[in-house]
């Protein structure tokens, strides 16, 4: 073997090994984050964290019960607004639309998907906070819903389209109308994929902080109603991490661990169990 060939082989092995190192570094970040959060947050998680309100400034102790409930409320209302729009919009694209309207709707969804979440927050602020003159759970949920719509819509469309033609034809041949075919045959056949996409969208917005900063704002107490500001886990993490108190930092770690844990569990269930062997669309 000439030295030239040997040199080329050495370079080849070296560079391929480098790509392996790159992959190793990229993946290890996940374990680093998980480990670090578990280490710092684990000790601060105790029963009070889940059951108590934040302690008054200056006192130690307290929990984040209001933020946990607040996040749950925000997410529930966001799904209530976002999922029907995304789902039925997706049904329209896959089953009813002509190519020109489909293009416009699809383009809008992609555009909405690319809008930075902070800009979505501004939008929710101008239409739901400014006119009513106060911050609210509703405005926060609306902002989160807007972030959920594009993924839900596009994946509903994709999964409905991937249902085999023969199933539709079978139902139609039995005399079912188009919408009956969709409701009783096509949608059930595609539900696993659609559910996966919705869960992933939900997991994504669960960690969104920026659109909540000036819509749901934050609250150190229980939120009295849907038209009042509410605490949420991500905003709480942000405020606590930047605060100058050691005790608050610990709680921020705990909240981070809880939030990340929930998000990753939903992701693993959605991708690993529900969507086994399916191509999951990226959000």
């Amino acid at each position, binding site marked *: 073997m000439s030295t030239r060939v040997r040199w*080329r*082989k050495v*370079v*080849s092995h070296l*560079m*391929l090994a480098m*790509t392996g*190192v*790159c*992959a190793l570094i*990229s*993946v290890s*970040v*996940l374990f680093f*984050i998980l480990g670090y959060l578990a280490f710092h947050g684990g000790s601060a998680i105790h029963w009070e964290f889940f059951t108590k309100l934040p302690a008054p400034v200056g006192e130690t102790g307290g929990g984040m019960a209001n933020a946990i409930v607040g996040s749950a409320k925000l997410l529930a209302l966001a799904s209530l607004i976002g999922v*029907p729009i995304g789902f*039925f*919009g997706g049904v*329209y694209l896959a089953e*009813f*639309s002509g190519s020109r*309207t489909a293009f416009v709707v699809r383009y*809008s969804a992609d*555009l909405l998907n*690319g*809008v*930075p979440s*902070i*800009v979505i927050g*501004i*939008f929710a602020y*101008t*239409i739901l906070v400014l006119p009513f003159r106060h911050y609210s759970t509703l405005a926060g949920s609306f902002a989160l819903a*807007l972030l959920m*719509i594009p993924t839900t*819509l596009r994946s509903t469309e994709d999964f409905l389209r991937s249902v085999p033609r023969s199933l539709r034809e079978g139902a139609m041949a039995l*005399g079912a*109308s*188009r*919408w*009956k075919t969709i409701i009783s045959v096509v949608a059930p056949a595609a539900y696993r994929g659609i559910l996966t996409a919705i869960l992933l969208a939900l997991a994504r917005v*669960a*960690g*969104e*902080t*920026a659109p909540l900063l000036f819509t749901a*704002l934050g609250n150190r107490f229980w939120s009295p109603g849907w038209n009042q500001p509410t605490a949420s886990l*991500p905003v709480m*993490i942000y405020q606590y*991490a*930047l605060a100058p108190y050691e005790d608050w*930092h610990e709680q921020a770690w705990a909240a*981070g661990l809880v*939030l990340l844990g929930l*998000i*990753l569990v939903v*992701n693993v269930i959605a*991708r690993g169990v529900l969507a086994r062997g399916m191509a*999951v669309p*990226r959000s």
Partner: protein
Amino acid sequence: MAVTATTVHGASPKAGSRTFLAKLRDGDEVARLITFLFAMFVVLIVVFLVFELWRQSALPRHKFGLAFLVSSVWDPVFDRFGALPFIYGTLVTSALALFLAVPLGIGSAIFLAELAPPRVSDMLQFLIELLAAVPSVIYGMLGIFILVPLMRQYIAPALKATLGFLPLFQGPAYGVGLLTAGIVLATMIVPYIISVSREILLSVPRDQREAALALGATRWESTWKVVVPYARAGILGSVFLALARALGETMAVTMVIGSTPVISSSLLSPGDSIASVIASQFTEATGDLYLQSLVELGLVLFLLTFILNGFARLLIVLTSQRGSGLENA
């Protein structure tokens, strides 16, 4: 058997030939209309979003005009607002993030697509997707508590000692700053680059690799000189997609950038980005002009990401079409 021409409701041979009334009776037209309204809602939202950003930024647009974009003064007390420090901060941190993330991301993507056995590749891809799901506020928190002290005590002094003659690495090291934000951003966008690039690389036809190997190329040469150039446009698309994410990224940047509206040539200096100034000042903005200037910053950010996203999608679509086109040929 003689077939008489009887019509059965909703069961005529061609669905398209059914009358409007028949479809209405079946509920098809109703379902179509309802789903159409939902779909139109999405279009309306986007139109309304652009309209609101435009309308709510009328004051600064009329008062400052285009000078808003090039003025570097941001002084709420005297009602003078210029976007330049934030545009600068956004562009510098994003550029830094790309500089750090692109080699790492593409390297990993090459490993996942070309080298790793399918099962390993799928598993690593799964972990990468999980990594992409980590919320940005958590990256921000890790940034504050790990990277900022590290930066202040070790990285910045080391950079100043070795590369201090460059204007890029001068001045006091606060820990927070453009470089810190760039590093956090880089960590956040690597998963996006990997996922998209991996798919693009996997879509490169097999014969391309085989032809290169048959000509005597080593495995690396076939990857680097044949497969990667073939997928070039798509990989570039993934980079633009990641750039668009980086531009709009808010929380992590806000927490480590230092929130100071200055333009400094030093990467160690604190700065501010469009998204993070909106996040940190929006709720305390007093006066319409102040608030609307922040909205106009949002408009600028929207336009930036809009252009980048469009460009990225175009590149990705072009590559994947070419890939499948050649495969069929």
